[in-house]
């Protein structure tokens, strides 16, 4: 019951993440300013940390969220628990690093990036919770449906 609720929460969070990352990717390629009330979005999006070898971080985030959603939908049992938790934790650590750079190096805050960091934090909590809550139980072959 709990697991089902956590699973649904993770799905919703992944979709929210996709929406945020898709918007930021669109903004990046359209060359427009993101709708931004903190005033720092484009400073952040055009900073040194906004791309990884030419790949915009927004697009990387979009791939990340799509992978998380895919792992939740396509995988079953332990594979689903482990892969989704691994993806979410990687995303969480990376977004924590980016948020750190925003606060202390770029000194500008992009609300969309913070929103994405919050979504990834929640996703990491939810998927890790699912993984640990299922701990010790033998894996159920009945999961195939």
């Amino acid at each position, binding site marked *: 019951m709990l697991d089902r609720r956590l699973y649904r929460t993770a799905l919703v969070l992944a979709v929210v993440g996709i929406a945020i990352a898709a918007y930021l990717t669109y903004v990046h390629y359209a060359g427009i300013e993101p709708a931004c009330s903190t005033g720092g979005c484009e400073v952040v999006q055009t900073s040194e940390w906004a791309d990884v070898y030419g790949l915009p971080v927004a697009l990387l985030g979009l791939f990340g969220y799509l992978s998380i959603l895919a792992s939740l939908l396509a995988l079953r049992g332990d594979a689903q628990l482990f892969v989704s938790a691994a993806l979410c934790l990687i995303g969480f650590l990376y977004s924590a*690093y980016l948020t750190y750079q925003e606060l202390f190096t770029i000194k500008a805050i992009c609300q969309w990036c913070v929103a994405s960091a919050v979504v990834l934090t929640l996703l990491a909590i939810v998927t890790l919770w699912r993984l640990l809550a299922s701990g010790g139980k033998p894996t159920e072959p009945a999961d195939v449906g």
Partner: protein
Amino acid sequence: MSTAYTPPNPSKRRNVMIAALVAVVVVVAAVLILVSSGDSTSENAAPAANAPLRGLQETNAMLKGIPQDGNALGEKNAPITMIEYADYQCPFCRDYALNTMPVLINDYVRTGKLRMEFEPLTFIGPDSETAARAGVAAGQQNLEWNFTHLFFFNQGEERSGYVTDAFIDKLYAGAGVDAAKANAYRKTPAAAVPIAEASANAQKYGVASTPSFVVGPTGGPYTKLEVEISNADAFKAAFDALLK
């Protein structure tokens, strides 16, 4: 606290898997963080200092006969002034400078209706600071606009370290700047003063992206112009509204 019997094998296997998961997560996250801050190791194609200078004809044609004073272009007594906040490394600033700005200069600056000022921001990286100082030094000879426009024509990949002394010398030569004088000036603390002022002014106007523009009657007050940078007609509409 588990009281129920759990088979030892799956649980043990699980602990190993969780350990493996933590290891994978830490390694992948560390790699991502390392590559995303890889600043100086960029393999981007910086324009070689000996590559031919682009845009000389266009720059000269655009600016010919228009008075310059430091960072300003156009008649001193033009009724309205637009101040641009730009980073020399920013590709959108180049797009604006090469595509939209020439139309505005031809229709409004050349005709004495508008004065333009250029304020350099340097948030992209150290090359922005080098370029901004070089621009300020060109402004000492009232050739900042020639230098800046040539810079945008020859702009390289962001943060690739292409703004070298040789690159600046090449632009100075094209812009007609006395390079010996300008190179001495751009390394003095005085060259950083207009850059610090630009940054302070940008904050005052709430500028968070480049290029950004403020416009108003010459001498102020100026207000931020919210337009699509590729849309010359939107700029013109804003100017016309102020000129009425």
